[in-house]
């Protein structure tokens, strides 16, 4: 037997124990979801277990981030086959950082849900589905294989299907039909482009694709990149594929809307960032005019939608889309600064959009209304709520010193540099970013003025006060408490952004020059 004539294809040594930290968050989330499915009928237990599991996941991800900060991207390959044959999980700063933000937000949502969920909702599998959703999102952030990314997209999708119809009110079914069809179509389009990539390059491992894409037919590759832009743009709700988001995000209970707003669209833009900036940079350059157009349109149209909307949570849905525009702006800019800004914006959006929906849920419970025309006078009734909402609106618009300001600063800086270098289209993008900030501020402060500042409902006289429900102690502690913690986190991160800045810059450098990423997977010598 000529063993030596064959290149080694198998991993002979067992995985180092410390490397398991890459997949541990996923294992915990999936096992937790299975366990909770069995224990869902017991009182109080599901929330407790879900909380503990998410805390363990957060601990794993902090440890993972610490290792990545020291050693660079980490990789682990399944099934003893060497990459590109085995399925790799490759975590870099962006993947691990977003996964950490997602887990943090999930923990807050689980705590918040304790204040909102009544005894009749016991046994509906909410906590199991939340953990399954977190598993899908974490998997999408940490995987290093394109087909595996598709599988995690579907895990995420089926969990979100379950969550959006929880309760089964007609309104939810209506939203779920639109959400379900369009998102399933988007993942099928992703599968389509994935099949074409496999046919063209013969590989699905991301690190391997980076190496092989440089020598492939650029026309075919750009076609595939355009399909990926279509698929991920649909998942991310970029204009003109955004119609499903404002049609569905306001239909489930507020706590589920919050989870969706924080996690789902962000995975879409993360995949776009990974696929266009890291995997197919040459095709991204060709697609740049299209990206610019989509980014500018999304930036401008989304806040206008929010201004025209009277349903509170639908209006916030449009603000979520505006955030997607900012991330797309970063992808449309060809510099490292733009990528860093986009990534930092994703981190900010995961926290801020969730917090906005959570506070909107509290507002809806206090007023008993969904329509801002019927709300008013909440400022006198609940000062903490009004402060929270105002802070979050300012953070969304990107007013310093809140977290939203820093990514916008990076984006504007990167855009201005391009514009000054003579690229007029990037100048338009800079103007669109500024206009987006102003319009978002107008939309948000109008919502604030209508809900909190005005003494009563629209058209009511000065002395007519609106009847408000007094919240129960449970709702106050869990609901308001969780929202305050998340908002405090956003404020603190805005005041001390150095760590985030450093992470975004390192991550962007790794994304633009993937040498360290490829080396981590172990394919450095294989690429010519």
């Amino acid at each position, binding site marked *: *037997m*000529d*063993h030596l004539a*064959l290149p080694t294809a198998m991993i002979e040594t067992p995985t180092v124990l410390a490397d398991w930290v890459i997949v541990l968050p996923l294992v915990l989330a999936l096992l937790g979801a299975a366990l909770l499915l069995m224990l869902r009928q017991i009182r109080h237990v599901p929330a407790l277990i879900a909380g503990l599991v998410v805390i363990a996941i957060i601990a794993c991800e902090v440890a993972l981030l610490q290792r990545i900060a020291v050693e660079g991207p980490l990789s682990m390959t399944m099934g003893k086959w060497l990459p590109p044959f085995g399925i790799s999980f490759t975590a870099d700063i962006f993947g691990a950082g977003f996964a950490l933000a997602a887990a943090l937000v999930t923990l807050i949502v689980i705590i918040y849900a304790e204040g909102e969920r009544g005894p009749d909702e016991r046994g509906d599998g909410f906590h199991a589905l939340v953990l399954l959703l977190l598993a899908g999102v974490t998997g999408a952030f940490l995987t290093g294989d394109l*087909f595996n990314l*598709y*599988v995690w997209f*579907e895990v995420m*999708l*089926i969990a979100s*299907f379950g969550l959006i*119809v929880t309760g*089964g009110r*007609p*309104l939810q*079914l*209506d*939203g*779920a*039909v*639109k959400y*379900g*069809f369009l998102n*399933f*179509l988007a993942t*099928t389009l992703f*599968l*389509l482009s*994935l*099949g*074409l990539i*496999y*046919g*063209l390059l013969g590989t699905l491992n991301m690190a391997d694709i980076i190496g092989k894409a440089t020598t492939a037919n650029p026309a075919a590759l750009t076609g595939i990149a355009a399909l990926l832009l279509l698929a991920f743009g649909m998942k991310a709700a970029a204009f003109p594929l955004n119609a499903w988001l*404002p*049609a*569905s995000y*306001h*239909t489930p209970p507020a706590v589920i809307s919050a989870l969706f707003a924080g996690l789902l669209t962000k995975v879409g833009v993360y995949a776009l960032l990974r696929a266009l900036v890291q995997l197919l940079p040459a095709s991204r350059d060709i697609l740049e005019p299209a990206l610019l157009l989509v980014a500018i349109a999304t930036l401008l149209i989304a806040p206008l939608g929010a*201004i*025209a*909307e*009277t349903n509170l949570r639908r209006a916030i849905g449009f603000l979520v889309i505006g955030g997607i525009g900012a991330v797309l702006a970063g992808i449309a800019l060809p510099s490292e600064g733009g990528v860093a800004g986009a990534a930092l914006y994703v981190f900010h959006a995961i926290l801020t959009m969730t917090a906005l929906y959570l506070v909107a849920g509290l507002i809806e419970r206090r007023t008993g209304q969904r*329509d*801002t*025309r019927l709300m008013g006078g909440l400022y006198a009734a609940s000062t903490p709520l009004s402060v929270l909402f105002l802070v979050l609106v300012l953070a969304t618009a990107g007013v310093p010193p809140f977290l939203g300001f820093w990514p916008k600063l990076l984006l504007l800086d990167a855009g201005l540099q391009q514009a000054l270098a003579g690229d007029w289209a990037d100048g338009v993008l800079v103007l669109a970013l500024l206009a987006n900030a102003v319009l978002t501020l107008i939309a948000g402060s*109008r919502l604030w*003025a*209508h809900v909190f500042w*005005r003494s009563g409902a*629209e058209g009511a006289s000065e002395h007519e006060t609106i009847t408000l429900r007094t919240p129960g102690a449970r709702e106050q502690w869990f609901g308001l408490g969780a929202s305050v913690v998340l908002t405090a986190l956003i404020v603190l991160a805005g005041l001390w952004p150095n760590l985030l800045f450093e992470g975004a810059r390192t991550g962007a450098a790794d994304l633009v020059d993937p040498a360290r990423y490829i080396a981590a997977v172990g394919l450095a010598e294989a690429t010519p």
Partner: protein
Amino acid sequence: MDYALAVLVGLFIALGVYLLLSRSIIRMLLGVTIFGNGVNLLIFTAGRLTREVAPIVPAGLDQPAGPIANPLPQALILTAIVIGFAMFSFLLVLAYRAYQELDADNTDTMRLAEPEDAPRPPLSY
């Protein structure tokens, strides 16, 4: 053979898109399924079609003796079929429930989440 299958993939996807453009949810469901099957066929074709033997390494050898069929697309398609079926069944139940609750198979009449006579935006600041 590749060309024939490529044409078939095109037909499947064209039919899927056509049905998806319909207003009836049942037609859309069929469209999604046909679209998905077109994609599965595409992955199969992308893995290169051969008339070669099954990818089994004979006993006593370290690698297959001659050219073999590509086993990877089958694994990919199997995963995609399972996922697609799960999604299809969910959407089917959803469509049935929506028909029961909203009495509508036509997406034009499903306007609960987005009311047709949407209120005008508030004019006060």
